């Protein structure tokens, strides 16, 4: 029999439902895997083995009582530590929130518990989801379970959902939540050889998720297969009256409708994404992806997204601007850490608390955001960026006149080593392929496409029309079926 921890989310759910094993056995196996990997990978900020067991016990009892089981019954998951979890510390990987125990549960996590999932623990991330390597966490870097063959250099699991990607890839969780603001689900998924989907902006409620950039943040699942992503997204998505930007539309049965048959579908290949000096292996995997989609019956069309080159600059104005305001609430008054120097007044307390509580990348983005919104600069930076954003969105809408989905690489390279990118700008440029879809609020996913010459995973990104998660998942499934990605990290921990 395969190990329980090797099973997919669907495999666990079905096995529990059929009685092949109990949810409690599953939770126990993953709890052990989590504990065994924690020192090496640092994927979790807190682990909650009892919570996982309690949820499992409930599922087992429900099953014994003959009750209908939820979509995720018996599946223990990891929760990115950006989702508020009632009674369990929630930090956004920042010192400033250390010790904060929310008296409420985020909408998305509540939906997952309602579907029968259990909490293995809170996953590490880049501080306030700001970063692409998981090096900005106040609780230590997450180490990717992947290594270059014959090389023990610690690699980045991607970011900001790096704890999530590392944990899923290491098979210490079958699935995890992520959030994606400019690529934070897709890039770490690509770096670690797993799948992840950022749904259409507004599909998943943002209520109870620590905000980074409100107009961009979206939650989504990260798992080993496209099917697992579809199942989990069904449980996470749905209208929430508590979030004004939530979309009041039904949640389709994505998993049941999955089909890798793309006959009659058109796949757009944006010429602007063929950057000068694009990494050869990345270019090769993109070509392979094109071939696979053709094989699946799709017609491939050349499209243009003319404002692509401006997406990153646009993003690095809008996201910091929103963040600078969203993070103003961390002031040491109502929760989290307070730094009150002797004799300090209120405003000194704020400045000291925020200086001590925020990490360098968070401060950097707050500073940029504060600057671009400040008097005299607002129009030149923020208003202009929102106009360019509208143009970027228009580009996509025009492209979708010609195609159903768009295929691109997820990231310009495979995982880099921790500490390799010391210049913030270098790090920002890594988001070049993922940011445009975020700016336009489009559903986008990364699926594993193969390994580069160093034996590290590469991902392909599929971008869909608004609300067409099905089209994205289907194309993902078609690639998954042909990429035959079976590589997994050697367990060195």
């Amino acid at each position, binding site marked *: 029999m395969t190990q329980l921890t090797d099973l997919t989310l669907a495999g666990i759910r079905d096995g529990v439902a059929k009685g092949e094993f109990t949810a409690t056995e599953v939770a126990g196996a993953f709890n052990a895997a989590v504990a065994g990997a924690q020192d090496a990978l640092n994927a979790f900020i807190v682990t909650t083995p009892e919570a996982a067991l309690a949820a499992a016990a409930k599922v087992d009892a429900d099953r014994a009582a003959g009750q209908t089981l939820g979509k995720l019954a018996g599946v223990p998951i990891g929760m990115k530590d950006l989702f508020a979890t009632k009674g369990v510390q929630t930090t956004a990987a920042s010192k400033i929130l250390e010790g904060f125990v929310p008296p409420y549960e985020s909408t998305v996590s509540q939906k997952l518990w309602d579907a029968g999932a259990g909490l293995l623990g809170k996953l590490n991330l880049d501080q306030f989801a700001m970063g692409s390597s998981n090096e900005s966490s106040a609780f230590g870097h997450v180490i990717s379970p992947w290594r270059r063959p014959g090389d023990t250099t610690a690699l980045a699991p991607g970011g900001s959902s790096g704890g999530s990607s590392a944990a899923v890839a290491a098979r210490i969780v079958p699935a995890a939540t992520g959030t994606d603001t400019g690529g934070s689900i897709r890039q770490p998924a690509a770096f670690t050889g797993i799948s992840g989907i950022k749904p259409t902006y507004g599909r998943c409620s943002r209520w109870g998720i620590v905000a980074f950039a409100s107009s961009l943040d979206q939650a989504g699942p990260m798992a080993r297969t496209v099917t697992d992503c579809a199942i989990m997204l069904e449980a996470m998505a749905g209208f929430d009256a508590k979030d004004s930007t939530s979309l009041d539309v039904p949640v389709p049965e994505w998993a049941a409708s999955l089909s890798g048959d793309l006959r009659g579908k058109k796949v757009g290949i944006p010429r602007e994404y063929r950057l000068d000096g694009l990494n050869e292996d990345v270019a090769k995997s993109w070509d392979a992806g094109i071939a696979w989609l053709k094989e699946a019956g799709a017609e491939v069309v050349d499209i243009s997204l003319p404002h692509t080159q401006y997406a990153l600059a646009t993003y690095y104005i809008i996201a910091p601007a929103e963040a600078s305001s969203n993070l103003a609430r961390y002031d040491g008054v109502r*929760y989290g850490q307070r730094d009150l120097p002797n004799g300090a007044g209120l405003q000194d307390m704020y400045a000291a608390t925020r200086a001590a509580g925020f990490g360098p990348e968070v401060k950097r983005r707050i500073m940029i955001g504060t600057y671009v919104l400040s008097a005299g600069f607002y129009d030149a930076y923020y208003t202009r960026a929102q106009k360019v954003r509208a143009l970027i969105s228009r580009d996509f809408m025009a492209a979708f006149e010609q195609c159903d989905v768009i295929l691109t690489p997820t990231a310009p390279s495979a995982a880099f080593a921790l500490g390799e990118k010391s210049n913030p700008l270098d790090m920002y440029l890594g988001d070049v392929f993922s940011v445009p879809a975020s700016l336009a609020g489009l559903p986008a996913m990364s699926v594993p496409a193969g390994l580069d010459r160093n034996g590290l995973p590469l991902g392909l990104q599929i971008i869909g029309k608004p609300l067409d998660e099905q089209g994205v998942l289907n194309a993902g499934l078609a690639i998954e079926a042909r990429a035959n990605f079976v590589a997994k990290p050697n367990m060195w921990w």
Partner: protein
Amino acid sequence: MTVSTYRIHGATGEWEVVIGLEVHAQITTQAKLFSGSATAFGAEPNSQVSFVDAAMPGMLPVLNGECIRQAVRTGMAIGAQINKWSRFDRKNYFYADLPQGYQISQLYHPLVGEGAIEISLDDKNPDAETKIIGVERIHVEQDAGKLMHDQHPTMSYVDLNRSGVALMEIVSRPDMASPQEAGAYLAKLRSILRYVGSCDGNMDQGSMRADVNVSVRRPGEPLGTRTETKNVNSVRFVMAVVEAEARRQVDLIEDGGTVSQETRLYDPDKNETRSMRSKEDAHDYRYFPDPDLLPLVLDDAYLAECLASLPELPDAKRQRYENALGLTPYAAGVLTAEVETARWFEVLVTACAKAQGKPEAEVAKQAANWLLSEFFGALNKIGKDLFSSPVGPEGAAELLALVGNGTISGSIAKVVLEKMLETGDGAGVIVEREGLKQESDTGAIDAVVAKILADNAEKVAQYRAGKEALFGFFVGQTMKAMAGKGNPQLVNEALKKALA
């Protein structure tokens, strides 16, 4: 339209005052602007605070529709432009009463645009001297929490009950030129808000506060530098602030100083304004559209519904009272200033018309006069007002009907009213129980008159000799003998006949 002649007499000459008011009016709602917590006044600290109001991580705003409806209705009541496309912006600054680190407000695209309010400067004749004060905009925004500074030696305490309560900020043009105009504007605005029902106008509970912008200049010169005195919470204080602040500015300039644009606080005990230390640093609010919210789009049907729901407003009502009911401008002005007074009066008129079987226009004057001269006085004596009065408009109409049909006289009516206020019993019951019915039996009256004339033969002779002033004496004696219950008209007639 009149030009204010209000001037400050400085050491070096005359100065004009220029005043603009930014009024924060709490919108009357059950729940807060962006959360479901309650807005009731006087609750236990932090009991009306949701996770949203406390700006806990991950909390999001969801707009209360009633706040929008009331702000739209208010805008319509001052004839303002309603913007069908508006938006909420964040105003970013750090303060302990502002949990989010920003106030959700409307800077770039407010809900309500340009409107106007007409003020009257002469209470005696509200039609005589009026002035139009421009309203630049009304926007909807969140209130802040409250800080308490004297509960602890080294700490201020923060109560977030008010945090997130819905406010309308009503921004006037700098069109006022005297303390009286500023006071009249605030009073009129309050009256309109209460008519509309969008704000209860309870200034002592903080439901309405004015930021008073004051500057001074030589007559005809360009505008001077203004100061903003925050959170002034009564009409009287607004007038006092204008006076004190204008005087301070004049003295400052005449002493060679310059006015700095700053935020100030009013100290009613010392009747002076002082600079606010906490607001000293130059603000850069970094306004930008709140990305947690979408633009607010209203359609024609929504606006039509708001318009249809508006009541008759004070100016229209006052005109109607004058033109259709024949009241004096003064009476119409007093009766329409407060929506509850007008409501009370209208119930009274309807009840009077019904009780007396006459059209409203015929009984309105009697009712108005009685209300203004008799009833207000009687209430005042027992320390009550119209709204705490034990006698309601229907009860009052019963009393007036008894006067109208001759059952009791006007002077007995005063006695009956006193007893009504005392006991809460109806006029008819009291008249019956105390035997206060007017004597209209001419035979009975004639008999009393005959006795009075017989008892005062000497005075009768003097009267007949031409001392006609004695007629009042005979009336008094007759009424006294009848314990005040004689029908005055019949008593007069009987005396005239007997003395002829």
